[in-house]
C-alpha cells in the first residue's frame, strides 16, 4: 500500500468521488486557484473547472446555506470552511435548516452535504483560529460528526460522509494534514459510527480522537517500557458514537481515560464517560474515569502557552501512571 499524507487522502477522496458522481462539488473560500487554506484542494479547479470547484465570497453563512439548499435539491455539496472557528457564522443554516430538514419533511427531503472543518491548535493561529468545537456540533440531532485521525480513516470516512444522506461535519485537525499513512489504491469506504482500536492493551483504555490519537500512541510507547499496556480506542465518528466498542475495551482494562483537545467543560469526554457508566462495563471499572482535555481557556498565541493549553504526550503519560497506580 502506498503511503500518502492525510491532506492527500482527503484530496483523493474528493477527487475520486467527484469523478464517480457528477452531483458532488466543492465550495469554499480560496479553494480554487489558491488550493484551499491548507492546500487540500490543490489542482482540483484545473480538473473540474469553476462549476464544480466554486470559489465563494467571504461569508460562511452563504457557503453553508448554499450547500444546504443544493443538497436539498439533489446535489452532493462539500463545503470547506477555512477554520472550524468560523462555523458560528453558519450555525443558522447548519443547525436550524440542514440538520432539521430531513426530519421536518418526514424524510422526503434529504440533506447530503459535507462540511469540512480544519480544527485545533498547534499552528500559532491564536484563539480565533485554533478551536476544537466538535462538541457543539455533536449536540445537534441531525448532524453527524466525523473526526478521522489517520490518512486511511480520513479517506474511507470522507467517502462514506459524501454518500450519507445527512449533513456530516468532517473535522480535520490541522496538525494531521502532514501525517503519513498507508492508503489502498482501490476504492474503499469506512462506515460511519464505527470505532477503531488503534492499539491493543490490557491495563487502561484511552479514548481519543484526531491528533490526540497520535499523542496517545506516543505515550503508550513510553508507558510500554514501564510495562503498562495501553489500549487506544479511536471513535472516528463522534456522533453517532460507538459506545459498544469503548465499553468493551473498558470491560477488558477496568480503566478509562478520555483525551481530547477540546476544552474540558461540557466536552465530549464527559459524554463518553457517562455513556460507559450506563453500560455493564461500569461494574468493571477499578479506578475513577478521568479526562485529559484542553484547559478551559481560549488558545493562547504564545507558543509555549499554546502547547500548555492542550494535552501533550508527557501529560498523557503522567495521567495514565497516576491512574494505574491508584492515585485517584
Amino acid at each position: 500500500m502506498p503511503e500518502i499524507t492525510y491532506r492527500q487522502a482527503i484530496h483523493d477522496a474528493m477527487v475520486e468521488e467527484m469523478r464517480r458522481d457528477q452531483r458532488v462539488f466543492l465550495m469554499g473560500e480560496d479553494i480554487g486557484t489558491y488550493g484551499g487554506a491548507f492546500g487540500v484542494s490543490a489542482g482540483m479547479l484545473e480538473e473540474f473547472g469553476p462549476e464544480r470547484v466554486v470559489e465563494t465570497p467571504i461569508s460562511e453563512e452563504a457557503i453553508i446555506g448554499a450547500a444546504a439548499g443544493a443538497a436539498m435539491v439533489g446535489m452532493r455539496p462539500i463545503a470547506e470552511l477555512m477554520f472550524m472557528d468560523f462555523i458560528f457564522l453558519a450555525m443558522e443554516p447548519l443547525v436550524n435548516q440542514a440538520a432539521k430538514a430531513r426530519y421536518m419533511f418526514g424524510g422526503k427531503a434529504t440533506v447530503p452535504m459535507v462540511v469540512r472543518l480544519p480544527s485545533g491548535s498547534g499552528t500559532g493561529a491564536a484563539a480565533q483560529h485554533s478551536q476544537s468545537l466538535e462538541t457543539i456540533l455533536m449536540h445537534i440531532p441531525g448532524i453527524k460528526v466525523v473526526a478521522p485521525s489517520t490518512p486511511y480513516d480520513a479517506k474511507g470516512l470522507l467517502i462514506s460522509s459524501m454518500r450519507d444522506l445527512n449533513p456530516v461535519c468532517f473535522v480535520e485537525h490541522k496538525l494531521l494534514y502532514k501525517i503519513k499513512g498507508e492508503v489502498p489504491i482501490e476504492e474503499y469506504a469506512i462506515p460511519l459510527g464505527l470505532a477503531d482500536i488503534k492499539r491493543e492493551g490490557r491495563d487502561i483504555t484511552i479514548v481519543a480522537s484526531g491528533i490526540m490519537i497520535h499523542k496517545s500512541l506516543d505515550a503508550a510507547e513510553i508507558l510500554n517500557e514501564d510495562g503498562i499496556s495501553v489500549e487506544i480506542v479511536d471513535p472516528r465518528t463522534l456522533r453517532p458514537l460507538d459506545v459498544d466498542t469503548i465499553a468493551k475495551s473498558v470491560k477488558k482494562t477496568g480503566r478509562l481515560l478520555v483525551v481530547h483537545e477540546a476544552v474540558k467543560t461540557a466536552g465530549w469526554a464527559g459524554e463518553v464517560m457517562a455513556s460507559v457508566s450506563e453500560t455493564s462495563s461500569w461494574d468493571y471499572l477499578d479506578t475513577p474515569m478521568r479526562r485529559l482535555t484542553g484547559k478551559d481557556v481560549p488558545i493562547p498565541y504564545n507558543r509555549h502557552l499554546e502547547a500548555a493549553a492542550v494535552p501533550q504526550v508527557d501529560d498523557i503519560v503522567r495521567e495514565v501512571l497516576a491512574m494505574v497506580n491508584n492515585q485517584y
Partner: protein
Amino acid sequence: MPTPFIMPKMDMDQETVVINEWLKSEGDQVEKGEPVILIETDKITSEVEAPASGRLAGVLYGDNEEVTVTQVIAYILGKDETEADLPEQPGKKEPVVEESLPQAQPAAKPERARKSATPVAKRMAEAENIDLEQVPSAGDKITKEDIESYLESLEQVTSRVQTPATPAARRLAMEAEVLLDQIEGTGPGGRVQADDVTAFVAHTAERQLPHKAVFSAGETLPLSRIRKRIAERMTASYQTTPHIYLTVEVDMYEAEQSRKRMNQLSDESLISMTAYLVRVVAWALKRHPFLNAGFEDDQIKLWEDVNIGIATAIDEGLIVPVIHNADQKSIREISQRLRYLAEQARAGALTREEIQDGTFTISNLGMYGIQNFTAIINPPQSAILAVGAIQRKPVVVDDADTIQVRPMMMMTLGADHRVIDGAVAAAFLAELAGALETPEVLLM
C-alpha cells in the same frame, strides 16, 4: 460622663447586627465620626463611626459577636475620665433616644483583618460566614485554598455507602460472596480495589484449607521435634519394611444407612463414619491376627489387644492418637473417644498414653476428596489402611449388568510382607469390605 457607644439600627426590621471587626481596640484614641467598627447586616457591610472623641473603653462585645441593636457596646471616655467613670453594670441596656444614634454609613469591604488574608479569601470568608481566626493557614496569609480546605473539613458527609470501593471491587465481592467491610482497601482513602478483593478471597480460601501452613515460599525451616521424628520413623519404615499394597473398592450404601439409623435411634452425639470404620476394622483384625502383629528383632509378635491409631493432621505435622481395645468398645464409645482425641490433638494436649501402643493404623484422607492413596506403615506395626472419599458413581450391581449409582469408597491396605503375605492381606481386606457392605456379618 462617658459617652455610650450604641449599636445603631440600620434597617426598620433589624434586630441584631454582627460586629465584623473592631477597627480600634480598647484604649485607642478615637475621633468623632471616625470609623470604629465594621458591622454586617443581612444586606450590607457598614462602618460605625465614633459618637464622640476620646478614648475607647469598656468594650463589651468582640469581633464576630452578634449584638442586639440599640444596645450599648462600649464607651468613649472624655478628657479627664478614666475606667472608674464607667457605669456599674456595663452591658445593661440603657434607654436610647433615636436622635442620639451615631451615623452609620455604608462602607467598602473591610480593608484590613486582624489575621492577614488575601482579598479573595476575605471575600469567601465573608460569604461563608467564617471567622478567619479559625482558618488554619500554612503561609503568611490565609488564601483561597485555606478557606476551601477549612470548609471541606467542616463538611460531615454521611454516606449511604459505608465502604468506599470501585465498581469492579463491588462486583467481585458480590460474586465471591464476601463483605466489603471485611476487606482492607489499598486505594486512595482506603478505597477497596479489585486487587484487594481478589487477594482477600484467595487468602480466605487458603485459610479454609485444613491446616494451612503459615509459612511462605522460599523459607528454610529447621525441623521441629515432631517433624524430625516423623522423618526418622517414616524413612526407616520405608527403607526397611517391604511394603505391599492392595486396594479394594467398597459399596458403602449399607454402612451409610446403618450409621444413619444408629444416629436416628439416639439423640446422643453423632456417630462418625471413622468411628464406624474403626469398629468394623477392629472386628476384622480380631479375625486376622497377622494384621494385628508386630515385627521386632526378627520375631513376629501377635498382639492381644486391638489398639487402632487414627492418623490425624495437626498444624505441626502428624500425630496418631490411639483407640485402645477398639474391639471391646461400642461404636458410640469409639466415636466419643475419637472426638475427644481429635480435640486433644489439635490443642496439642495428647498424653503419652493416648498415642502409645497402637497395633494398627487407619489413615483417612476422604475429607479432602482423595479417592485412593498409599500409606507408610508405622513400625513396629505391620499394616496400615488408607481410606479414600466416598463417591457416588455408577457401578454394575448384578450379573445382569444393571448399572446403579452407589456410594463407593476405595481402601488401600499397606502391609509388611515380612509378616503378611498377599493372600493374608487379601483375605483381611475382603472380609473387611464384606462387613462394610453387609453389616449383619458382625452379628454372626
